[in-house]
Structure formats: C-alpha cells, structure tokens
C-alpha cells in the first residue's frame, strides 16, 4: 500500500468495530489495525482509512456520536 493513510484513534475496541461497521455501510474502505505505539499506549485497535477518504469518514463517525482522534501518517 503506497497510498497515504490516516488513522482514527477510538476510545475502545467496541467503538472501533462500530466505526468500521459504519464506514463500510457508507461505502468507505477501512481497516482495523493495532494502535501505533507512538500515538498511544493503548493496546487495542484503531481504524485506518486512506488519506483521500478522511473528509468523508469523519462526518460519518461524528454523526453517530463517536469520539475519535485523527492522525495523519
């Protein structure tokens, strides 16, 4: 994957799998990946999306009331 990616740090795995379900329903590709150590000490997963999808992805999660932190890699 040579594309640029961003990750959305969620507050828990339950929230991450909900985010994944919502993004897929909205037709956006995403992947659950382990949280990069330099971003958080948490041991769970975060949601990786293509950089070009970030603008579409964020409102989907916000509309569902999900809290997240956006990090561009």
């Amino acid at each position: 994957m040579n594309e640029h990616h961003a990750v959305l740090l969620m507050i828990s795995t339950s929230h991450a799998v909900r985010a994944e379900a919502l993004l897929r329903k909205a037709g956006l590709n995403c992947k659950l990946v382990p949280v990069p150590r330099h971003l958080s000490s948490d041991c769970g997963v975060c949601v990786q999306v293509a950089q070009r999808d970030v603008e579409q992805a964020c409102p989907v999660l916000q509309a569902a009331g999900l809290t997240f932190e956006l990090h561009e890699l």
Partner: protein
Amino acid sequence: MSRLGLVYLDNAATTWPKPAVVRQAMSRFLSQSAANPGRSGHRLAVEAARVVYQVRAALADWFGAPDPLRVVFGSNATEGLNLALHGLLRSGDHVVTTGMEHNSVMRPLRALEEQGVGVSVVACAADGSLDPAAVQACLRSNTRLIAMTHASNVCGTLLPVAEVGALARAHGALLLVDAAQTAGLYPLDMQRDGVDLLAFTGHKSLYGPTGTGGLIVGARVDALRPLKQGGTGSASEREQQPGFLPDCYESGTLNAVGLAGLLAGMQWLKERGVESLRAHEQRLCTQLLAGLAEIPGVQLYGPADAERRTATVAFNLAGCSPSYVGQQLDERYGILCRVGLHCAPAAHRTLGSFPTGSVRLSLGVFNSQADVQRTLRAVRQLSQEVQH
C-alpha cells in the same frame, strides 16, 4: 416431545432445546475466533470483537435502542437489573414497583431501601394485571424510577409497559423494564414504549445460551454507578474506571462464545418468524388453559385470555402440594416443570398462592399439541387419584 422422550415445560426458566444453529455458532466461534474481544489487536481478537458488536447491533435493532454501544453485556438479566437499580438510585430517591416482581427486582430494592431509598409497591389485581392509574397514584416529587416486569414469571400476565412509560415521561421519571420473560417473542420497543432501561436475558425467548444478558441504557439515562471496576482494554494508562459506554460497565472478559450463540438464536427467530412462533405458543397456551380448567380440583392463576399473557401457566391441584404434582409429572410422565415460589414471593402474594406456591407449566416454541395433550392426561389422572 423432545428426542429424550421428555415434555419440557420449564421454558420460563430457560428455553430448551436450543436451535441447532446456536450450538453450531458457538462451536465455530470456539474453533475459529475465540480470542479475547477488545483486548488485543490481532486478527482473532478483532474478529471476536466484531461478533460481539454484531450482537449489540442486533439487540439495539430488535429493541429500538438508540445506539448499539448502549447495549451493556453482563451474565444475565439479574446483573442488568442490579446495574440499573444500584447504579441509578441514591438515598432520598423514590422508586415505584409492582406486586408482580421477581426477586431480581425486589431484593435489590429491599437492599436499597435499607440505604434510604423509598420503595412503593403498587398492588396488582388477583390475575396479576396492573392498572396504570394505580402507578400514577404512587408517584411522588422525588420518584426517580418506575421498575416493572414486562410479564410475570409465575403466571404469564403481561403488564402495560407503554402506558406506564407514558406516565414516567410525563412525570420526569425513568422506566426500567425487566424483560426476562418476554425479550424475543413479545414486542418491546424502547423508543415507542418509553423504556429507559431494559434488562434482558439471552437464554429464554431469544433462544441463546445461559450466561448472556444485560442492560440496554436509553438516551435519557446519564450515568449509572458501575457495579464493578476492572480491565476494559481501553484507557489502559488510567487506574480509574473509564466513563464511556459500554466499557464503563463491562469490566472483565465478556462471554463472547455465549454471545455468538445468542446472535445465532436471534437470527433463527427472525428466519422462523417471531410472530408465527408467538402465535404457536399462544395456541398451545389456550389449549392448555382450556384443558386444565375442565379438570376437577384445578385452580388456575393469571388471565384466561392468551392475548393478555405469555405462555406460562400456573395452577394448583386441590389436595396436592405443588412439589408432589411436580415430582409425579417428572417421574411418572416425563413432564418437566417448576414448582414452588419461582423466586417471586410478591407475585404469589398477589395471586393468593403464598406461601404454598404453584405448579408452573411454561411452553416454548419447540412444544407441540401432543405435549399439551400428554400433560392434560397426566394432570387429569392425578386429579382422579386424589379424588378417590
């Protein structure tokens, strides 16, 4: 009749048998994705977390909950009820409940009463039915919560949840519903019926395994005090319990294999058709009630009309203790039921069957007309023996 030649009429305790797909889903989960949901980032952990999320989403959809993340899993409905009652009520609050409650509501309330919570128990009619006006009459300025069962676990009487939900809204109180006896087969929608807290079990009318259940927390509920603290796999850098749903109430590893089975049970119900399964139970219940009513010495409890009740039937046979009847049904006829007080002394007081208790015959979707006929023949024979 089951493959074992038994007539199982204890479905109000737990439904049996379970659909084969439940067992298959649990076996598949154990062999293919039984890692810890929410604790690690590898593929099996993520797969397990997805399964758990699918169950949350399915339950939220089923019960009209606002958000799957407001579905909190615990071991059973009792844990859900305890979380709601102990989590919400404080000294100085007032709570209204009914005379048909199970001890899973009554015992937490009696414990809270000792801590300064005011408890009013609304009397129900002799058939277990509840008049919403009687609930209205008990409301006070400090009434924080109305806690009620959706249906009696003793005699099946359905209680008017939507009417009480409207009263609670108008008064600014919250409504907690114990849906242990109904969740799955009987319509219940948190938004439509004004339910703020819904305690459910997975192992009765949702046809999942034991060890599944919990509480759905409606949007009007701010924060409940957690029953327990511990690891959640989230906010791990902090030694304090996280404050967000569902993690704040789900410390410790979830029963993910049980939840995988519950999801299969729910999908099975949808495929078979909830309404036709409920109609099947109601038809059998009508036959059972009509047959029992004709047997000399039988006293029935609860409403006669199948529309006003679940398929749980309570009766006594004159001259016999409930335990004698239960033992005879089991040993001589292979009919399995539950006798006694059914963890619901308040309900038996309402029905007039305290402290003796009653014989409870609770039907499930796998019962047949032949089961009902065999049961009626057995009770008729017992009745004849007592009279001669």
